[in-house]
């Protein structure tokens, strides 16, 4: 059977020399769940828009459940469910009305549409809210309705575009539980985009790390972390130290790899972090650039991101937000 998603070499430019995608390729098998992890502005949402037929790529090919998104968008639309960043539910209608209309748009008959709506209301714990207007819903309730709307026609591929952005911790935990339950369904493939490291770590069995419009690393969260071989050693100075003596001091130490100096912070890897620390501190002292703080940690996805993108995730995320804000209004309506 065809893959749930096969995208190859996707390129998308927006007016004003904004290259949103720069040759992005991903594959998602039947019934799998893939997380696209990347900072704001990395190209995750553009990827979702192309795969859901909302945007045409400038180059590259993409197929969803075997249907080409450019040549057969009508077929793609029948097999996908989309939960986008912005709700999309009609605030003036009730939850049930939204669901019934959604079922109708896929050609479902009246009685069946109502049955399906009730089924989903029950499954997502919306029974109490079913007859209230959506504008009275809390953020978490509204999000659960959005997911229900995406599942009305029993899609084969579900797109979850930043499903927990803006939710409070409690609503977020309950959404995670829903997504984990969906991931257990073997007939449903899920593409999840997120800029939360913990969310990607917890939900996605496979991850593609996206940076500046392309996939920079791919694998299971554990494999990605395992590739880093060893512990992360983080050092911090009161102010940005001179680079040359720091590099010279650390370069002499055996077993210390992947040294990345980023302002007053430094990250490196060591097979045994705790054992490496005394030597590191001594070497820096001798070189006249003593560190103010040191921590040793098991590798995290943040370290994975740093390794492949060359910067910390939080920094990239803030920078991405600034880029996104500077993007022309032409793309503004879509975000």
């Amino acid at each position, binding site marked *: 059977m065809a893959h749930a998603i096969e995208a190859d070499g996707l390129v998308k430019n927006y007016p004003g020399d904004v290259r949103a995608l720069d040759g992005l390729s991903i594959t998602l098998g039947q019934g799998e769940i893939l997380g696209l992890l990347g900072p704001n502005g990395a190209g995750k949402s553009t990827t979702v*828009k192309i795969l*859901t*037929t*909302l*945007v*045409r790529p400038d180059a590259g090919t993409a197929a969803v459940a075997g249907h080409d998104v450019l040549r057969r968008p*009508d077929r793609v*639309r*029948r097999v*996908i469910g*989309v939960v*986008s*960043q*912005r*709700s*999309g*539910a*009609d*605030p*003036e*209608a009730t939850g049930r*009305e939204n669901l019934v*209309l*959604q079922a*109708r*748009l*896929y*050609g479902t008959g009246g009685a069946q549409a109502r049955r399906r709506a009730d089924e989903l209301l029950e499954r997502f714990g919306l029974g109490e809210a079913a007859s209230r207007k959506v504008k009275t819903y809390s953020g978490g309730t509204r999000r659960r309705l959005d997911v229900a*709307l995406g599942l009305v026609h029993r899609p084969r591929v579900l797109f979850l575009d930043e499903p927990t952005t803006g939710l409070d911790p409690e609503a977020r935990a309950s959404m995670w539980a829903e997504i984990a339950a969906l991931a257990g369904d073997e007939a449903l493939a899920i593409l999840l985009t997120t800029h939360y490291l913990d969310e990607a770590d917890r939900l996605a069995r496979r991850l593609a790390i996206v940076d500046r419009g392309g996939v920079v690393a791919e694998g299971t969260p554990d494999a990605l972390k395992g590739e880093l071989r060893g512990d992360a050693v983080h050092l911090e100075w009161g102010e940005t130290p001179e680079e040359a003596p720091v590099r010279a001091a650390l370069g002499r130490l055996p077993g210390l790899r992947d040294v990345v100096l980023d302002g007053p912070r430094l990250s490196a890897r060591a097979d045994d972090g705790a054992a490496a620390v005394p030597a590191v501190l001594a070497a820096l002292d001798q070189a006249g650039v003593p560190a103010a703080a040191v921590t040793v940690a098991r590798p995290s996805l943040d370290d994975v991101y740093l390794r492949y993108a060359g910067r910390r995730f939080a920094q990239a995320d803030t920078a991405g937000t600034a880029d996104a804000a500077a993007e022309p*209004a*032409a*793309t*503004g*309506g*879509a975000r």
Partner: protein
Amino acid sequence: MTALIAGTWWMTHRRLSALVRNPAMLIMSLAQPVIWLFLFGQLFKRVVELPGFGAGSYLDYLVPGVVIMNAVSLNSFAGMATLDEIERGTLNRFLVTPVRRSALANAGVIEQALSTAFQSLVIIALGWAGGAHYPGAAAGLPILVAASVLIGVVLAELSTTLALLVRDRNTIIMLNVMLLLPLTFLSSAFMAKGLMPGWMRHVASGNPVSWALDAGRAALADDPDWGAVAGHAAPLLALAAATVGLAVFSFRSYQRSQ
């Protein structure tokens, strides 16, 4: 074809449910034409005495003018609803379903047409209560209402197109405020064309608002000149069809450009 009809039906159903749930808007927006009817009716009362005006009472002449002006004003804000849908993400939710793009445009047209027809009928009834006469009412009033719907569709579809392409509320408001008065005063809404300065008469003849007015007034006359009715209604109908096409195209273009 059945998919198009079903899609149009469900999208229209959604819009009309919202309208029925919140009818206050439709009623409140009638305040403006009622004020026009009263103000213009009083202010210009004696212009019928001008030689060559050719109407018995100014109110008789004014009612079609207010009906059409109201249709222009009401529908030129249709783009605001489209912007709401874009900002909420509702439009994208529909665009990723199999629903036809033309069903989205059609639903807008049908909703606007029904609201416009309802308001036109209310204005005609108020005019009648105020003493206006409609000699050729049986055929004339339906044609006047139809003309108001057609000019309404033209404005609504242009407004929707603008919303989809420019995606900015202020642009729509500014254009509407700027265009409403010239569009209506450079037409036969309040003054017989024969009494206008020459240049204005030429502009008015090419103004679709005048086509709607002239079709409606000709049909309302004692002894209607059906040739004149058809001559004005035909280009109006063609223009309305063209603007619907433009709106469908702009839904597709929106999809490509976002």
